[in-house]
């Protein structure tokens, strides 16, 4: 038999909620703010993680050689370049090339301010960094004092990419040398660095004459087709002993993630803020639903006396929690999108509220409101129909 819509528990929940308009608005605001914070903070966290893993994930090799002193590939420790030669002796290894990495002093010619940029020295003709726009076989690359510029560098170091796109030549001072920027690649910067430059070993030496060319930062191993990566990895590590470490690509990413989790307070802080937002949102929703239950205790007891089961009353309150989460989510999403855009401008890192994040936070919001409703429902059991008389 079809029943009037007004009699479903969800409809009663909605009516009860919307009856106290101010209270509902406060609850919705609580949900929205919690959603906004969770979305923003988790998106920022992802941004930081992703950009921190940028270097590790763009390295174009089957195995990666690092110094055992290296904590993170973002700031590698040096190892003797001859290790690379030793690895070449292992069966299955096709090529080993090394990358030099150092922080250089870049002058923004528009503002005459100095900024830190990371300079990567790459081997000619070796495609060791898989970023859009790097072509080590480009003849321009063979010139002296040239470098490629990372489009994702922070704008404060100068509108270099715009100059290049407009077809103008651009050069500036890096480590007291005049360097011409001949092209732009799409990479990504990390916390503490304002930009990236990619150049050749020879140009790297010109910019950093005090760094001995025998001390390399990252070794990139390419395997012959059909070689067993696991086996080469084992042989390489036993060959290098305690002086060098070889990682698989997966192994390197794991190491980087572990480093970030352990050493970057940003992970902890972001997770903490998200948790606090979750708890605060839950408390607000709980508080609103709880007072609603308390204020309607005699009515709920009356419903029980009339023969409505506990399940029906429970669903009234739970549906209120769900309604709050489903309505409150959208203003929170909107706010997070706006603030993410502002944050992107402020930190010059791509802050995106991704669909993954939206689904995750929506799930968290539903859980948040359901738990709050579940706690508030607890009070319902004290609605004893025998007390209404």
């Amino acid at each position: 038999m079809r029943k009037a819509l007004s009699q479903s528990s969800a409809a009663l929940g909605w009516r009860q909620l919307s009856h106290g308009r101010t209270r509902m608005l406060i609850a919705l605001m609580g949900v929205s703010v919690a959603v906004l914070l969770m979305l923003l903070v988790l998106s920022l966290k992802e941004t930081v993680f992703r950009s921190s893993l940028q270097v590790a994930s763009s390295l174009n090799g089957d195995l990666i050689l690092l110094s055992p002193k290296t904590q993170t590939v973002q700031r590698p420790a040096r190892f003797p370049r001859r290790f690379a030669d030793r690895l070449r002796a292992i069966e299955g290894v096709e090529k080993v090339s090394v990358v030099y990495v150092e922080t250089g002093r870049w002058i923004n010619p528009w503002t005459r301010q100095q900024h830190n940029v990371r300079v990567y020295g790459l081997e000619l003709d070796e495609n060791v960094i898989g970023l859009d726009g790097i072509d080590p076989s480009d003849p321009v690359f063979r010139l002296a004092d040239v470098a490629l510029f990372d489009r994702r560098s922070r704008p404060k170091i100068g509108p270099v990419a715009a100059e290049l796109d407009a077809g103008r030549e651009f050069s500036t001072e890096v480590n007291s040398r005049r360097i011409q920027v001949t092209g732009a690649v799409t990479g990504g910067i990390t916390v503490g660095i304002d930009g990236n430059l990619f150049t050749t070993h020879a140009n790297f030496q010109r910019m950093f004459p005090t760094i001995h060319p025998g001390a390399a930062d990252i070794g990139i191993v390419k395997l012959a087709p059909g070689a067993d990566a696991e086996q080469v990895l084992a042989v390489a590590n036993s060959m290098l002993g305690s002086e060098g470490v070889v990682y698989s690509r997966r192994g390197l990413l794991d190491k980087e993630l572990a480093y970030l989790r352990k050493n970057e307070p940003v992970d902890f802080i972001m997770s903490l803020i998200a948790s606090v937002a979750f708890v605060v949102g839950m408390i607000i929703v709980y508080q609103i639903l709880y007072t609603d239950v308390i204020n309607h205790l005699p009515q709920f007891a009356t419903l029980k006396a009339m023969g409505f089961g506990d399940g029906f009353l429970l669903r009234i309150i739970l549906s209120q929690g769900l309604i709050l989460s489903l309505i409150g989510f959208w203003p929170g999403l909107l706010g997070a999108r706006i603030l993410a855009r502002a944050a992107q401008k402020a930190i010059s890192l791509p802050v995106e509220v991704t669909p993954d994040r939206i689904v995750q936070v929506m799930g968290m919001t539903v859980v948040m409101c359901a738990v709050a409703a579940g706690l508030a429902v607890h009070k319902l059991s004290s609605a004893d129909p025998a007390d209404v008389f």
Partner: protein
Amino acid sequence: MSSDATASVLSIRGVDYAFGEGELRKQVLYSVDLEMRPGEIVILEGPSGSGKTTLLTLIGGLRRMQKGSLRVFGEELMGSDNRRMLLLRRRIGFIFQLHNLLPFLTARQNVELAFALRDDVGAAEMRRRSEETLAAMGLTDRIEAIPAKLSGGQKQRVAIARALAPAPDLILADEPTASLDKQSGRQVVDLLHQLARSKGIPILLVTHDNRILDVADRIIRMEDGHVTCDKVGLL
């Protein structure tokens, strides 16, 4: 349903009831016997603390029986479980001292809610019967008002309509006039009386308002947990 049910709405034998345990145990009902026939309007009167309300909650399946036998519509409530008590309550119309209407529903919606537990009544019929009952309660022009817009007497009449509209097999009312002034109290009881009579619904009404004793077929007096007097009404 056994044939018992038609013969007797209510049959109570030797019911004892006590609150608390051990030292704090306080007995409020002592071997209460009571019988109610179909269509009968019975008033249960007595001073406060005499056990009237406790007896009413036992009959309504709102409290667990402790001792004795209590049959409503032929069903024994001694040793009954929650589920059976819940199902029993759906056949009873309750009227409380306070109206306890849901403040966010209109008068009509509050009455309709009483049908929500009945599978045999569709939306249209539910609406028709709710409006009819409200009209019979003199609330024709207040049907779509929320409780906050109604006077005390009007709210109590809505509550009575809620109890009566689904045509329950028994109405249990506890001091329905307690929160009302003399005039609206009288009016509410008269309406209850008329409607129940016309539908043949038996009423057990707890009160110590002696202005309304005249509606009863029978008056039962309770004192200190004992039924002290069981007499045919004054009419």
